[in-house]
């Protein structure tokens, strides 16, 4: 449809989103005076949209974003039991470092909570080399106040071990891997895995009596996640996928994303400033090796990254869209038995149209002769017998045999 | 015995022809000694007749999503897409859905 100045779209095209600018991610540090504290420094940190500042002023600024996220919403009760999820990425190391700093301050600024760290080992599922245990042990020494645990993705929560007792299991044969092999598309496998990972983390939190989980997603992750959720048909719950607080975990465990307001440049500067050593690159997530066009998730990630290069405001605009949406939640309504998102109880015309399409395809030319009520047939098919939401049903439909749960 | 020939017809519509010298229908005679799949045909088209902006027709090694391919009036998605082996007198039609509507 040619859509010159179409009403649903706007008359100005996407002009306001089109400020072309590049966002250099390379670290460029130069000597000079800090514009904040006026102290002379060999290395000034120049963030986009900020004046150059010294290391201390930069760290204070970045850490404030973390504290503000937790503080503004009063979302973390005093002395809460927190489980920090470490995946080895730069972001997760920044989160660990920021939490550590916040806890070791002696002033009124101290963040009062009790934290533990769990490293989620994904190597068996991903088929990559295991993490260097030594690097992990060094981290646990460096951040000694926290207890470090290791859990393997796909293993039973009870197999979690303290880092000093952990050795990688050689048995690459867990149920999760079997389930993944039975799913036909990478899109379904990635979607399923994301849910399973979340369930595992929740179980670990319960084992360790933690009420809150910290994950290290930053703004670009959440912008990508929002678009991915929409493409997967998860619009009703997309708000929780990108919000500071996600309360869909079982047992009243709350998932928090305190780094949501940080961007990639801030992460890189922080890593540099604190001399942190990420264990993995971000691009090493499950299924990324199959290429951009291998799944909806991979496509979306590549799309956001490409767009961001040409239109610097892409991530922040999408991210802000995420801030404006609310979850479709109603305590009286039942939740999806797989992803625990609130089920839409109203009849959706769009889902009905899909089922109706199936019915008319089966009937073909004889659809007017058969006398069958095709709409009725479509409605029956749509009736939620399995307790799954639309998107989780799509995963189920790609399972060669067996049940999703 | 002359060299074996493979004769096929290529057609373009709904704007796809604009990328191929604005010619809507072509009769092709290909070398019959080799096996011709749609995949080979696309490479041949790229090398020989794709005159305008190849990225609007090809993406990686296949036809850009949004351009429909019909072989003898049947959706190529039912015929193995790139792996379909061309037969004598086949008609391959490319319809763009990417142009104004």
């Amino acid at each position: 449809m040619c859509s010159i100045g179409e009403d649903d779209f706007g008359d100005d095209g996407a002009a306001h989103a089109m400020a072309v600018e590049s966002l250099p991610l390379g670290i460029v540090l130069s000597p000079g005076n800090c514009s904040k504290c006026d102290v002379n420094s060999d290395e000034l940190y120049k963030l986009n949209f900020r004046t150059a500042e010294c290391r201390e002023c930069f760290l204070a600024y970045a850490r404030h974003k973390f504290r503000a996220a937790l503080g503004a919403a009063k979302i973390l009760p005093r002395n809460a039991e927190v489980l920090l999820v470490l995946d080895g990425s730069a972001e997760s190391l920044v989160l660990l470092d920021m939490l550590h700093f916040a806890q070791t301050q002696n002033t009124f600024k101290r963040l009062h909570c009790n934290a533990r760290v769990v490293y989620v080992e994904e190597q068996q599922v991903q088929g990559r080399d295991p993490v260097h245990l030594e690097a992990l042990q060094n981290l646990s020494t460096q951040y000694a106040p926290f207890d470090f645990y290791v859990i393997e993705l796909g293993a039973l929560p009870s197999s979690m071990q303290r880092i000093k007792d952990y050795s990688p299991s050689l048995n690459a044969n867990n149920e999760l891997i079997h389930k993944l092999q039975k799913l036909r598309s990478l899109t379904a496998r990635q979607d399923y895995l994301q849910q399973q990972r979340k369930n595992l983390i929740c179980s670990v939190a319960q084992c360790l009596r933690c009420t809150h989980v910290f994950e290290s997603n930053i703004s670009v992750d959440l912008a990508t996640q929002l678009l991915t959720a929409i493409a997967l048909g998860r619009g009703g719950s997309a708000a929780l996928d990108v919000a500071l607080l996600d309360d869909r975990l079982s047992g009243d465990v709350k998932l928090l994303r305190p780094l949501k307001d940080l961007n990639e440049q801030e992460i890189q500067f922080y890593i540099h400033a604190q001399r942190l050593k990420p264990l993995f690159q971000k691009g090493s997530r499950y299924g990324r090796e199959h290429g951009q066009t291998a799944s909806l998730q991979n496509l979306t990630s590549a799309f956001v990254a490409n767009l961001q290069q040409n239109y610097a405001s892409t991530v922040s605009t999408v991210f802000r869209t995420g801030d404006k949406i609310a979850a479709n939640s109603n305590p009286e309504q039942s939740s999806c038995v797989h992803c625990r998102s609130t089920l839409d109880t109203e009849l959706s015309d769009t889902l009905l149209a899909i089922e109706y399409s199936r019915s008319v395809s089966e009937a073909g030319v004889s659809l007017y002769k058969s006398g069958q009520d095709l709409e009725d047939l479509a409605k029956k098919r749509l009736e939620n017998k399995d307790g799954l939401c639309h998107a989780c049903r799509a995963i189920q439909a790609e399972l060669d045999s067996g049940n999703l749960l | 015995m002359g060299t074996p020939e493979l004769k096929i017809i290529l057609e373009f519509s709904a704007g796809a022809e604009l990328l191929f010298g604005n010619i809507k229908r072509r009769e092709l005679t290909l070398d019959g000694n080799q096996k011709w799949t749609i995949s080979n045909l696309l490479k041949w088209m790229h090398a020989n007749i794709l005159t305008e902006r190849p990225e609007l027709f090809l993406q990686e090694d296949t036809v850009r999503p949004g351009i429909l391919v019909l072989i003898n009036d049947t959706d190529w998605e039912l015929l193995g897409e790139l792996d379909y082996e061309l037969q004598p007198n086949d008609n391959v039609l490319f319809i763009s859905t990417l142009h104004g509507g």
Partner: protein
Amino acid sequence: MPIICKSQCGNRAALKRPKTGDALCKECFFAAFEAEIHHTISSSNLFRRGEKVAVAASGGKDSTVLAHVLKLLNERHNYGLELVLLSIDEGITGYRDDSLETVKQNRDDYQMPLKILSYEELYGWTMDRILPRSDALDRGAKLLGVDSIATGHNADDIAETVLMNVLRGDTARLRRCTSIRTGGGEDTIPRVKPLKYSYEKEIVMYAHYKKLVYFSTECVFAPNAYRGHARAFLKDLEKVRPSVIMDIIYSGEQLRFKDTVKKPERGTCTRCGFVSSQQPCKACVLLEGLNRGLPKLGIGKKSKGERMIAKQNQELALRERANLVKNDF
């Protein structure tokens, strides 16, 4: 091994349906495609018996298939509608002539009255590109006295618009872009999208198999680069999982907004009385711009436009005062 039609009619399948993955033969596809549009129309009560409906006709594939199918369904299911073709001559050189020829062909093929309204008739100006066609359609429909306007937006268009509005952070449009019916309040003519659940692929295949004539040359206002990215992204997604288009529409419908997010207020323009969320409406601003010799008015930001008007008023005032002074002597 040829694939046999899903309906078990025994014929060879001709196409794979993207919505469900089912393979159908031509005849079964026609039946299914038309039945789905009928289902959309009847389950959403898009029309009422006796109504006069304008089909927004551009000569392109969507509006050509829409006109064809509406005429057919109107007769088959006895909707009792009076269908007319409404075409806006935007005065775009080159594009206009061919597309209007196609629309005239639609008129003859479907024996529907055709009204072509030019921008000149509507506004007294020929305006390439500056005024939204939607506004012109509204005005044209009012002139014709129709009860509703049917537009050719298909499922791909709607999914693309959902993505665009997420990318732009435009929650006001996100709220309404998936609606099958928009407008219809006081003083506005409702717009309906009977092809909301029809995939672009099927529309093109339907037109091809039915040998419908449509016009398809790149519109000179081809989508801007940003929208082009969104469209290419959607097509890439569709290739990986064809059901994604319906899934995105579903997602768009399921989005809820925080109470703190401002809802757009729709009022009527104080000058021309047409529906507008701006005061005065965009058309009046643009017209004022043309009349004042400030053609850029209404294209940029509102504040900038106001500054331009203020500046001009000031200059006019100065000149007038100068004239007064002159005349005093």
